[in-house]
């Protein structure tokens, strides 16, 4: 069954009088457990597409159905709640909360979900083990390397037990060792937990790992390959 179903999606940005179409009629289906890269040159519309899937932006036309819910029909506050329970995010610049420790950053999202202290703590420790940072649980982001911060971000994205994780250029700020570690980690999580990952990237190292590659150019899907 498709986790994400996108039909005839359009997004036009207005810059003064000028209309800039970023997504022009995209149809796409993503199944549970996919490890998919949306690739394309800068300005091709990858990030916009990811934002529309994540409900961070409203489409000009078309629908985005996630697990049976058309998120384009949700109100702002419902959408925030929907994201909290259904979507995990990993950002290019890690975007951890700088005043919280690694552990607290992961716990935070479960706190927003109103989970009990015991549940939060056991899930956090489990995730820290999985991303290999159990020994850095009490470090603040500023005390962690870029690769470590991004691994915390992955753990945070999984903490809410989402339906899928959206990662926008997750490796753009990482060196090759950290990139390879991170990709191995995400692939492992994909296999072990059947977690769906969708990347927007133009990093060849990520593309090489992807199981499916959706190519986008000028807001159109120009290629869709199942590799593995």
């Amino acid at each position, binding site marked *: 069954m498709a986790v994400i179903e996108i039909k005839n999606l359009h997004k036009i940005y207005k810059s003064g009088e000028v209309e800039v179409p970023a997504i022009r009629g995209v149809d796409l289906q993503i199944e549970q457990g996919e490890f998919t890269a949306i690739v394309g040159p800068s300005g091709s519309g990858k990030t916009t597409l990811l934002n529309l899937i994540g409900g961070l932006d409203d489409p000009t036309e078309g629908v985005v159905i996630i697990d049976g819910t058309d998120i384009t029909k949700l109100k*702002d506050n419902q959408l*925030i709640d929907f*994201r909290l329970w259904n979507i995990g995010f990993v*950002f290019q610049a890690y975007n951890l909360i*700088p*005043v919280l420790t690694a552990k607290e950053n992961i716990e*935070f999202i479960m706190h927003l979900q109103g989970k009990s202290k015991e549940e939060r703590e056991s899930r956090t420790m489990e995730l820290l083990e999985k991303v290999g940072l159990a020994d850095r649980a009490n470090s603040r982001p500023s005390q962690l390397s870029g690769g470590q911060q991004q691994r915390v971000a992955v753990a945070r994205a999984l903490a*809410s037990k989402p339906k899928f994780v959206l990662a926008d250029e997750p490796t753009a700020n990482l060196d090759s060792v950290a990139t390879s570690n991170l990709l191995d980690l995400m692939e492992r999580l994909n296999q072990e937990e059947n977690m769906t990952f969708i990347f927007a990237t133009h990093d060849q190292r990520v593309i090489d790992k992807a199981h499916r590659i959706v190519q986008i150019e000028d807001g159109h899907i120009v290629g869709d390959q199942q590799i593995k």
Partner: protein
Amino acid sequence: MILSIAWKNIWRSKVRSLILIGTIAFALAGTIFILSMMDGWMKDRNIKLIETQLAHIQLHNPQFVNNMSITDTIADGASIIEEIKDMKFTQAVSGRIKVMGMVSSSYSSQGAIIEGVNSIRKDDVSKVYKYLSDSTSKWLDKVKRNNVVVIGRKMAKKLQLVNYQITDQSLQKLKDMGLPSDVLHKLATVKDKKFHTTTNFYNTLEKILTEKQFDEYSDLIADASHSYKIGHKIILRMQDTKGDVVEEAFRVIGVYNTNNDLFDGMYIFVKKSYLASLLGLGANTVNEIAIITDNQKKVETYKQAIKQKFPSLLVESIFDMDPTMRIMTSLVWVYYAIFEAFILFALSFGIVNTMLMAVMERTKELGMLMAIGMNRRRVFSMIMNESVLLTITGGILGIILGYLIVLYTGHVGINLTKYAQQGMEALGYSSIIYPTASPILLLETTILVIFTGVVAAIYPALKALKLKPAIALHTDV
């Protein structure tokens, strides 16, 4: 957790937050100090007014207030006093005899209000004995003789019942008060010389000091180097109940000082029984009954109760006798609030500015928080919490600092004698102020501080709510 994040966020920009906290703390400490000073000043005046003149409630013959005639008395005073004593709110009650008269010393004469009070302290609501000016002064109960009188400092000066002598001690006192050394050198030239009248002393000061120095310092010098002529005789002259003039010599056994020129220059105290016999009044007759109740705030109710019991008498509360007291009691919190609101209004601009900066430079982070599922209510409350915590931290420090300053100055007193003794004492206010921190003031300050923190955060918090996560995430600050 939101509260803990808000608290941690405050310390992300330590210097900026500390500057704001410091500003709030100092502004509030200053405000609390100034208001406590006013409060202490007013309370001092009110307490003295109650202890020395008005008590809480007074009873008179309705005719008495028109011209203070000695014939308009309360004839059965003693039995009325006994009845009032039995009323449950009465803490102290006593009868007085008040009569207008003339006082003369060998140097000068002047008008006075002669007040006959119980010679035993505990029987009287009047507490003038608390204000005796020095150890040489005695109250009426310490002397067996009947023809003795206690007069005020101002009266003693007017009657020239003061000796002056500049000694090493008085020079040191003046030096401590900050008099210029030039003046002190000049005073040293007349050191140890005795002056038996105020006129002589002032004439000498006028000679040795410049005109400006004389204007500025003569009263301070006189205060530092005087001693009263205790034991000196004065003559009191008054009309008795038959209209005949009575004249009697009294010995001054004490001088009091309530720092209120109007009172100290007018009221003199003698033994009631002796005054009654001079005037030809019966032993049970008084012309004023003064009552101290258990609660100053309830005097109006008590007044009504007394009125019902003694309909033929004029019953007045302190609020009737001194309307400023009513303003002080009922409106003081409004006065505090207005004063503080102005200060906090000014401070709120600083808070808005700081919070706006905090929101702006965290655009990306706020975008991320909304993206991962922190709803607008929580974002709003986080910003609110930051502002309120920041303001409360400054507020608490300010309240503590202000309170400590008030405690200290309330203990040692703020001496304004050098700057404004004459002016203030002429108006009935002491020139030494003992600030008192009223609980209402501290409570109001706390409430207003929180209120300011909330109000000042609304605009920055709304600004944060308007952020679109997709745009905010890609904003570089």
